């Protein structure tokens, strides 16, 4: 039997790998994963902000990796380091701008409808995770901002009892949180979010009438006008 030529339903897995493959293809067939068409209602600039958020995050990651080549104090001493830091800084600013617009857009579209609650939840978690990554980024800039932010925010962390494991005044610990632990967690959440979007598809308009079964009498006066 050649699994490559079987349909998903005909394929009987005999290994863990095969089981995962069958489940994956059932959940996310190629036409969902990399679609060439979208429903006709996916036609507004608001939809662009999800993609803008993703690509901004990509620029954040790339500029962040470049910054690691020089270390946390590089940008104080070198114009190249400063420019690289600026790339990181402005990509973060755009990332949050796009993400907040995307998030508000999804709220006003009630995008959690139709079993899409987990998509919403992973989106909110992505926002919260991003806040955490950005916060640790500010805490490791080794300048006055870092001093003040670390000094002030330690009170909040201590107040909620996490100061022992999340010590914002410990530069070494914050560097590791910023470049390793938190981006890893964030990346996992974002990948989950994107896969859920692809799995469930883009949520239809609120109170939409299915074009194929639409009863013209059910249309509102608004349509007639």
């Amino acid at each position, binding site marked *: 039997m050649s699994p490559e030529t079987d349909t998903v339903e005909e394929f009987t897995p005999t290994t863990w790998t095969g089981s995962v493959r069958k489940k994956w293809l059932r959940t996310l067939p190629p036409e969902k994963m990399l679609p060439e068409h*979208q429903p006709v209602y996916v036609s507004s600039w608001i939809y662009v902000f999800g993609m803008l958020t993703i690509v901004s995050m990509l620029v954040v990651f790339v500029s962040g990796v470049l910054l690691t080549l020089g270390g946390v104090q590089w940008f104080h001493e070198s114009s190249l380091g400063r420019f690289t830091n600026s790339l990181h800084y402005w990509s973060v600013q755009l990332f949050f701008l796009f993400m907040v617009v995307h998030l508000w857009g999804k709220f006003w579209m009630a995008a959690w409808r139709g079993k899409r609650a987990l998509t919403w939840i992973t989106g909110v978690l992505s926002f919260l995770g991003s806040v955490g990554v950005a916060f640790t980024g500010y805490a490791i800039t080794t300048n*006055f901002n870092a001093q003040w932010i670390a000094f002030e925010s330690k009170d909040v962390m201590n107040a909620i009892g996490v100061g022992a494991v999340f010590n914002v005044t410990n*530069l070494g610990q914050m560097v590791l949180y910023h470049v390793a632990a938190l981006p890893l967690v964030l990346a996992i959440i974002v990948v989950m979010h994107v896969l859920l979007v692809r799995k469930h598809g883009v949520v239809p308009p609120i109170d939409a009438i299915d074009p194929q079964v639409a009863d013209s009498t059910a249309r509102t006066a608004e349509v007639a006008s």
Partner: protein
Amino acid sequence: MSRKNNDSLDYRPWTGPNRHYDILKEGAIALLVVTVLVVGLSALFSSPDDPALTFKGWATSSPDDFYATMVTELAGTSATATYGPPYNEGDGVSVGPLALQKWGGVTHPVDAAQDFVITPLASQANPPAELKAALDAWTAAAPEQQQKWGGDYSDALADPAGANGDATKVPAGEYGPVPVLSKAATDMAVSGAYDNALTGQGQFFQTDQTKQLLLMGDGTFMDDKATELNLQGNTWGMMNEAGSWPGQQWLAFASVWYQLPAFNAPDEQADGFTRTLTDNADAIIATILVFLLFTFLFTPFIPGLRSIPKWIPLHRLVWKDYYKKYGRRSA
């Protein structure tokens, strides 16, 4: 907005008309646009970088403040000395009976007098005889005696009707080695040696700035600079940053709470509910935020909240073309 209407389009795979869509092309164009924007903004505006404060800078520009801070460290009355967990024993802040700050215990022990004054001074290779004698006297004294010396001198130094912060005008008294130690620490800081002594803390590798930052925050030097730059919590400091930069605007949802008068009782207000709220602001606001974040997270399941988009129909702007062509179910 009912979640049980499983016949609605929301729950069914879309079988209606489609439009051409190329996700990778959209991504490539978006990447190009964002990259151009980022490079342009970086070239035009650069990025913020106000130099970090140093103990040398502090002691040089505000020697009286540095000196007074050394005195409070020795007296055990500084913010750090009285902070509580995770630095030392104490109550810390709480939300009513819920004292999360105490749960973790003392995980980063800080002895303010020892760590901030005595150890740096004792690290000098050849201390002057007067300083050596002062260090010996301090070390030999009982903790109660140390606190009495420090407390008496701190009161005398701060007395608005007396010295009012001027060490040369402090009346004679039983202050033990406190004046000598405080003066020696200030001189050491002016020379720049304090930065090295506190940063290295006797180790070759050191990446933990907890002690330096706690000491820096015990004086008014850093606080004054933050006030000057609008970085205090009650001036949106949680989201501002030094200079004219966008800052962390995404923290607006947290920063807004620190603007409320209820969390900003004046220092002279000794008691009352607002005083309690202000003293425990960090813990109370953190609790409010946790509640709000869970609400945000579980919006799809919260009746009323999940219906707001239907009540305030901004979505009609997004899908106006669809509604125009295919109609919309009546409410």
